């Protein structure tokens, strides 16, 4: 297989930004089969097969090795693989799709400013009510990892399908872990971001799969891509060399 499979977002602002980013690097993306097709090509990189997928599908495809490389948010990648760095290399931050994954508490909790406060209040709530503090989120794994690292126990995760920021007002959770760009949505829902509650400053990443079926040809195509988007910066190119070393090391 000499073809490089590249997955890019299929819809929304992320799609536009990704296309613009690649076009600026000299890799104009052309949709195949009309504007709603799921495949595309890059005339300047004929050995690249472009797939259009949702950002979440791109994260899982890169992690599983179904595509060689993809553009997706670091938040989604880290949520889907707890040990991301063992299965995926982030070759280049792309400078768009910026959002922070944060822990937010009700503004009325004047005594709560940090994760340490959260742990104290959670223990206090459990002691007085017998119930654990509830945290609403779509980012279950990221929340669990962060709370463990910060030494917070006595909490339960309430998995949220949407409109997570409304959970405290609706009485289904006390805390929220969610993605935010300006904090305005959290703010207008009566929530405040904890001072040390930024779990991840996320942006779109060019992510390469360690588990994909790599060949000399597909690595060569990735090299062209990495050097192209690296532009004047050496960052992407240097990470590409590290990635090549990782996927071509003899199997043990």
């Amino acid at each position: 297989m000499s073809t490089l499979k590249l997955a890019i977002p299929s819809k929304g602002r992320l799609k536009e930004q990704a296309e613009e980013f690649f076009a600026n690097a000299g890799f104009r993306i052309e949709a195949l089969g009309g504007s709603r097709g799921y495949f595309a090509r890059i005339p300047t990189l004929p050995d690249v097969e472009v797939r259009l997928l949702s950002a979440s599908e791109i994260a899982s495809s890169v992690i599983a090795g179904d595509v060689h490389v993809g553009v997706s948010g670091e938040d989604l990648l880290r949520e889907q693989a707890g040990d991301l760095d063992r299965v995926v290399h982030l070759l280049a931050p792309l400078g768009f799709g910026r959002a922070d994954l944060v822990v937010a508490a009700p503004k009325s909790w004047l005594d709560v400013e940090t994760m340490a406060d959260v742990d104290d209040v959670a223990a206090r709530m459990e002691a007085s009510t017998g119930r654990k503090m509830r945290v609403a989120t779509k980012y279950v794994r990221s929340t669990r990892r962060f709370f463990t690292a910060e030494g917070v126990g006595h909490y339960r995760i309430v998995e949220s399908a949407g409109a997570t920021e409304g959970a405290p007002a609706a009485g289904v959770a006390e805390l929220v872990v969610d993605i935010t760009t300006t904090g305005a949505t959290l703010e207008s829902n009566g929530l405040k971001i904890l001072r040390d509650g930024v779990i991840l400053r996320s942006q779109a990443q060019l992510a390469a799969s360690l588990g994909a079926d790599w060949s000399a040809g597909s690595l060569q195509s990735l090299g062209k891509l990495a050097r192209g988007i690296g532009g004047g910066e050496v960052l992407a190119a240097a990470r590409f060399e590290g990635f090549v070393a990782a996927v071509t090391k003899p199997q043990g």
Partner: protein
Amino acid sequence: MILSSQAAAALARIARASGVRAEPQTLIPAEIVLELSGEAVRSRLCIFTDASGKEHCLRPDLTTPIAQMVASGALPVARYHESGPVYRLPPRGSDEPVEHLQLGFEWFGNAGSAAEDAEALTVALESAQAGGVRAAQVHFGDVAIYHAVLAALPLSDQWRDRLRRAFSRRKGPRELLADAGSRAANTTGLAARIGAMAPAEAEAAVVSELAGLGVEAVARSAKDIADRLREKASEQAPDAASAAAIVDYLGITAPVGECVSALRGFAKMAGLDISGALDVFEERLALIAKLKPPFWSNAEFSAESGRRFEYYDGFVFELGRADALDRPIVSGGRYDGLISRLSGGAHTASAIGAALRADRLVEGARA
């Protein structure tokens, strides 16, 4: 499930001392396990969600469902033995099986004692020997001594609670103490101002502050927030001597024959009266010595024993190959507080138990 001859021999030794056989359910409410061990264990559980959204999980051990049955009154307070498969998802890259066979016992009673500790340890170690284990080492500890150290130190209630719950967490007491300084500097102007007020005045100030922010009190009352602001304002970080004593205590390891003098020496150096806990500890060791359990002569005390389990609150022990201490063959300990926790304070019972991994008996049988 068919037991290997080794597992059957181990279980026979357990059963002789352990009353009737308990048959806990395989599928239990995930809630029980999560309430007990926290969200951090979720990634290891085999969880199913039913049509109503309620979560069930395959039992990750036998202790939890049996304790739950005792806490709910479905089983009387008595001695039980058990065997059956338990289920834990392995972390990525691990070759551990999802399902393994566990053997064990749980003894519930009205009052635990040093004699019961000694008997439970002996039964657990003899059953491992009956199951073919030859070369293995015991590590043991006593969580009650840690609690006694915290009780004897001049700590604020908040810090005593924090340090107590940090014992079983990855961010443990040492890490918590290292952060103590930055925590003290955390209180902002508003919190400090309200925190300095009398109770009623502080509550009124919180109410007026919330009105100013245009928000309602969510999930907690203005009084609760005012009370905690007052606690925060009066909070004292552990002094250097107390922090050093805790770190010193957690660092204690000693062979079984030297651990009493090591602990008494620590108490004297730190100027702590923990003689109640140490007397129980010493009595237990004397009773164990009389019972002469296998593997005990080269046992090693470690103050940090039991950190991997949240519910142990007294004597704890593990038996494993010296070259694979992270893969214990036997784990056991006292958990007197568990029945009360599981029943919301409705029932209390003393409890001690141990679990053997049948699949690891084979490893222990190798020289």
